[in-house]
């Protein structure tokens, strides 16, 4: 029986290598794109958490303005971030 894959001669190594490398690189690129998207998402979450932590601390100190995207106030700057947040982040 004339199966097409059997009838097709095996490609020489240098030519087949391009296709094999192509397939594995495509897979790797897809995984990397996904991981990059997830990293961006996690960075956004981390940034928002930082803002909320700053807001919570401000509120504890008697200020009431809500920070971040939902408020008219500008987002809190890093200088207003709760003390020790950077140290805690660097410990993780």
């Amino acid at each position, binding site marked *: *029986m*004339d*199966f*097409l*894959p*059997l009838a*097709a001669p*095996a*490609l*020489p*190594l240098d030519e*087949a*290598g391009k*296709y*094999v490398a*192509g*397939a*594995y690189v*495509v*897979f790797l690129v*897809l*995984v990397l794109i*996904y991981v990059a998207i*997830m990293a961006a*998402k*996690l960075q956004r*979450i981390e940034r*928002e*958490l930082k803002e*909320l932590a700053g*807001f*919570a601390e401000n*509120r504890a100190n008697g200020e009431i303005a*809500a*920070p*971040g*995207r*939902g*408020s008219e106030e500008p987002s809190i700057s890093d200088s207003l971030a709760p003390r020790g947040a950077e140290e805690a982040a660097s410990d993780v």
Partner: protein
Amino acid sequence: MYGKGLRPLSIATVVAIAAALSLTFFYAPLDADQGFIQKIFYLHVPLAIVALCGFVAGGVFAILHLRSGERRWDAYSYVAIHMSVIFGVAVLVTGSIWAKASWGHWWVWDEPTLVSFLIVFLMYATYYPFRYAIEDPERQARYASVFAVTAGAFVPLNFMAVRLAESLVHPRVFATTSGGLPGSMMLTFLVSLLAMGLLWLTLVKLELTAKSASGQLKRLRRAIDAPLPGGGSRIAPEVS
């Protein structure tokens, strides 16, 4: 909660992928007919199996959601399908590259295995606009679950139909009377399958962890009365 065990799972995945690649390129013998190009088999087939199992898993989670009404099952179902669609893209691309190298064509329309996988993939590609189209979160979750159950049931039926179909093009390497895969190739294939399964599981867990964190953040914002314009992702179910 979802992040628990993510680190050991990630390490296991990296180890399994390294083992699979080592076996593929340094242990498994060259195929007598296809030569070096057959190495794509150890990537393409495990990806396809894991993607199809992921679609079925999405259907099972959807059943659990419909039975219990718990939103977390809908989130599991959504993430399982989402990840399987990504794996599906990889299956189609690596399959096309293999087809071009082996058969001289990027795509063969009269080959049932290829076309049936494309049909399954396109069916699941409609899952996203279907979810997007429904505003109410409860209805969105319920309708998406019904979709996932129906589509999930279609996957094994489709697989069986293809196996029953007489094909002259696509090689059958498992359970054939002419011998199937030799031991070394089978071992490499099984390790590759394990690696792809672990990768799928790790990415699902990562996605669920991110969604859980995002959901907790939204709750926190609501709790401190700072409304979030846009409300975050509309399609992605909230995981708390």
